[in-house]
């Protein structure tokens, strides 16, 4: 049974999400991966304003392929999240509430998620074409020079994601594997 959630991800929405929940997400999300995160950190460290409002926002770790004419966005599956781990706690401190990616996160990120009340979602890695169909609008917000790695504002409808790590630190990667192996006994 999927939960339909819309952005902004307020505290009560975050608290209601548990590791393993299937979610259909709608609303505005921002794309950013390695290069954009590095620039955001530089702004945070200098005490400067960020080009996007991260409060109660969701960032999707993705670098899409170029869109074909007539398409909203190219193929857009998640990139592997651990590369953003060093940058994440500072963004969570600034109010970021949701991250979509795939793969393991560091303990520092999980601790910061628990402290700041945030959720980490997994989108299906490699399902770039399927995920692209959920994007109804896409525009570059900033860092156009980064091409695929620019920060884009996406309007998504029913984006299928799974809660991998919830705001209490429960982790589907651990729970899922254990539950499956337990079921074999």
């Amino acid at each position, binding site marked *: 049974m999927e939960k339909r959630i819309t952005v902004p991800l307020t505290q009560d929405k975050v608290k209601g999400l548990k590791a*393993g929940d*299937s979610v259909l997400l709608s609303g505005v999300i921002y794309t950013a991966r390695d290069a954009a995160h590095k620039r955001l950190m530089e702004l945070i460290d200098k005490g400067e304003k960020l080009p996007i409002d991260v409060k109660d926002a969701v960032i999707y770790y*993705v*670098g*899409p*392929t*170029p*869109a*074909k004419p007539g*398409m909203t966005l*190219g*193929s*857009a*599956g998640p*990139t*592997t999240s*651990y590369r953003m781990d060093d940058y994440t706690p500072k963004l969570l401190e600034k109010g970021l509430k949701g991250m979509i990616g*795939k*793969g*393991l996160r560091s303990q520092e990120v999980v601790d910061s998620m628990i402290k700041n009340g945030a959720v980490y979602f*997994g989108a*299906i*890695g*490699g*399902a*770039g*074409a*399927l995920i*692209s*169909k959920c994007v109804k609008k896409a525009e570059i917000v900033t860092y156009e020079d980064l*091409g*695929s790695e620019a920060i884009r504002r996406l309007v998504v409808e029913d984006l*299928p994601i*799974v809660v991998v790590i919830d705001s209490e630190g429960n982790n*589907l*990667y651990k*729970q*899922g*594997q*254990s*539950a*499956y*192996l337990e*079921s*074999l006994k």
Partner: protein
Amino acid sequence: MKEINVVEITKTVRDLCIDANYYLSDDIRNQLLKAREKETWNIAKGVLDKILINADIASTEKVPMCQDTGMTCVFIEIGQDVHIIGGSLCDAINKGVAKGYEEGFLRKSVVKDPINRINTKDNTPAVIYYDIVPGDKFKITIAPKGFGSENMSQIKMLKPSDGLEGVKEFILKVVKEAGPNPCPPIVVGIGIGGTFDKAAVLAKRAAVRPTDEVNSNPFYAELEKELIEKINKLGIGPQGFGGRTTALAVNIETYPTHIAGLPVAVNINCHASRHATAEL
């Protein structure tokens, strides 16, 4: 003596780059369908369904299956009796990659220098391996390699005394450490023997070998079966959410090695394990 003009090579490379990214190869599709049939865990079934639906959307709408259209690995089998005319073979291949990635709306994911990382804007240069073979064959295999899985690959110089058990232990360690990161269910390419570099290339060749081909060496065919069973028993599952299907295939390639060495390389491919081949 067979003459091949570089213009043909460029066109074929271009087409293969696009094909490999848009269309799931038959052997991988069959592995996914078999895995879906055998899968018992609900969330795992859902993930496998979505992976197959994604492949259908990509092929119908002629778009890349995945946004990481990869760094382009190229394997060329070139017969001794082939004469390349019209220009440089290497340039022709790279021109084909540039055309394919531009005209196919593929992502340009290559930086010119690993430290000073400026994008080359055309996904070149490719990583090219040439095999000289007898006769007048000219075979091109394009294997776009995404780095989610590539980054989870590892190589180790084992001691001969580590033996077969040491080899199995290392392979399982690599798969466990990779966990959800390489987009399971994975294809595991293993290279055993040779030198440090040879083992790595063997692993890549193994990863690209069609998964419906059984190893011609019965000992390694048996080892491939044993390893895929052990890997699936880990329960990592599709996308690491748990389940029966962690690996779609395990392929091993070997080469003679030094009396003091046992190099083992593990090259991990994601559930698309993209490759496309053509002969000229």
